[in-house]
């Protein structure tokens, strides 16, 4: 699988762009605020059906314009696919709902059915918070990987989010006395069923990802450190339990927390509270790892993600490296670049080309990004 072309209309600071891409490495360079990250964001949007940068879709439309469009051409063994995303601004402020429309080869798709047509691994400065930052970042890491592997998972997450909003609305209404708890059990039940499916999948995938991450980490630390990934589900012990048993545990956990849940107007157990723990030599790295150790562990995790996605799908994902080169030291940079040979298609941004070794640049297609335009 590779991305052979990307075109943008009124996306972020791009008025119009049509950029053919090489199968190998593309380097995007240029000063600050010129549009390097915006371009990477557009590719991620086409892959994930959502921007990894913002929830506010309206931000993606070029200032003052009614509509933005991103079109990607994906070449795969089975033929070529055109992925098309149109984002339209809502009308008046009170209806300010931007809409996203997706098409694959000219046929409409839902967001969930779009994910997986183009697969990416994104590594950018935000990821450097993966260990010390809030657990939401680690759940997002899992979601991004898992939804690209299995469309069912994307569907389950969407359903779960919807059920969670309904159940939380009911909990608040019960607290405020505007609704009776009569229908709470039905929402708990549905939530537990979908939640259990998500948790079982997370457990399975983390177990498969773990040996890859450990191996990369051993290599990066010259055998000195052992990295371990542990899935930490909320409200249930997953292990090898079947989905029904996990759902039962979640139901029981909700029943136990009933008072707390009503008091807070919020569901306090379930996949929305899960975490992914990373341990270095059996110590929780969130608490103990140094800056350098964190960076190495995160790099190991990202390399594992890249390889796992390729292994599990039989297709190389596109690697998007935004600005991370300047964040890594010489030796980690070299390790990362070594992973690209013979490797996947990659888009790498760097404000400063000196962050990349000369030998590497010789083989890459280099583009200058300047005020929303791209030239060789």
């Amino acid at each position: 699988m590779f991305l052979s072309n990307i075109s943008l209309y009124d996306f972020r600071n791009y008025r119009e762009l049509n950029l053919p891409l090489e199968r190998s490495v593309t380097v995007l360079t240029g000063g600050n605020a010129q549009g390097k990250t915006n371009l990477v964001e557009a590719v991620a949007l086409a892959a994930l059906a959502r921007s990894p940068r913002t929830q506010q879709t309206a931000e993606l439309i070029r200032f003052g314009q009614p509509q933005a469009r991103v079109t990607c051409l994906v070449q795969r063994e089975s033929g070529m696919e055109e992925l098309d995303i149109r984002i339209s601004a809502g009308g008046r402020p009170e209806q300010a709902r931007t809409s996203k429309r997706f098409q694959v080869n000219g046929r409409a798709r839902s967001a969930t059915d779009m994910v997986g047509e183009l697969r990416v691994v994104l590594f950018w400065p935000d990821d450097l918070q993966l260990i010390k930052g809030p657990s939401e970042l680690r759940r997002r890491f899992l979601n991004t990987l898992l939804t690209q592997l299995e469309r069912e998972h994307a569907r389950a997450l969407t359903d779960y989010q919807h059920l969670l909003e309904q159940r939380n609305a009911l909990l608040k209404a019960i607290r405020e006395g505007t609704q009776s708890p009569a229908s709470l059990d039905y929402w708990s039940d549905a939530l537990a069923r979908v939640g259990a499916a998500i948790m079982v999948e997370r457990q399975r995938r983390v177990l498969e990802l773990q040996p890859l991450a450990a191996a990369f980490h051993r290599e990066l630390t010259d055998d000195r450190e052992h990295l371990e990934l542990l899935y930490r589900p909320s409200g249930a012990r997953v292990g090898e339990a079947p989905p029904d048993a996990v759902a039962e545990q979640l139901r029981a956990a909700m029943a136990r927390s009933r008072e707390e849940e009503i008091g807070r107007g919020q569901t306090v157990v379930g996949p929305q509270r899960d975490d992914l723990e990373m341990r270095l030599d059996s110590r929780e790295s969130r608490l103990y790892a140094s800056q350098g150790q964190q960076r190495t562990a995160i790099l190991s995790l990202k390399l594992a993600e890249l390889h796992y996605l390729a292994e599990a799908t039989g297709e190389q994902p596109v690697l998007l490296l935004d600005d991370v080169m300047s964040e890594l030291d010489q030796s980690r940079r070299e390790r990362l670049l070594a992973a690209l040979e013979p490797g996947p298609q990659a888009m790498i941004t760097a404000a400063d080309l000196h962050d990349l070794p000369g030998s590497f640049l010789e083989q890459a297609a280099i583009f200058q990004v300047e005020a929303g335009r791209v030239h060789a």
Partner: protein
Amino acid sequence: MTEVPGALTRLMEELGRLPGIGPKTAQRLSFYLLRTPRDSVERLAGALVELKARIRFCEQCFFIAEGDRCAICLSPRRDRSILCVVEEPLDVLAIERTGEYHGVYHVLQGAISPIDGIGPGELKIAELVARLRREPVAEVILATDPDMEGEATASYLAEQLEPLGVRTSRLAHGLPVGGELEYADELTLARAFSGRQAF
């Protein structure tokens, strides 16, 4: 900026309140009506007024009716031992189009949806229970939409109806999940009826 006359702004605002009509469409419709001959605009206005004057909800099943009761409740040919529970009047029309169903209906006027502030109390559920106590119904078909709100509503109803000792079944899921009944095609809907399962 040029002022738009009040009468036109008001019409655009009113049209813009309708479901599925955004500001652009409201504008286009308003200017279209401005160009339309007077008598056809008056026919439209008359139809709107008559709608509210003549049509109401059936006091028994909450489907649309011209009098106290709807045509279905009044019809001597319907089988009163079987009752189909739906969310909206439009669902009744969709089921009627299949020609497969000859029982009567009960329209809940919505589905349980806490986000929209709709709980069991906001629906015609108490009326349904009272009706089942009163009338000799042998089977209730729960034909709420196959989405999350419809499922929650059906589960809730199944439990409420259990003590009444009436047989309940759920419309078989040939229906697209997450879909809405009113958009299901006739064949799918007909199959869903014949394949319904005990709840």
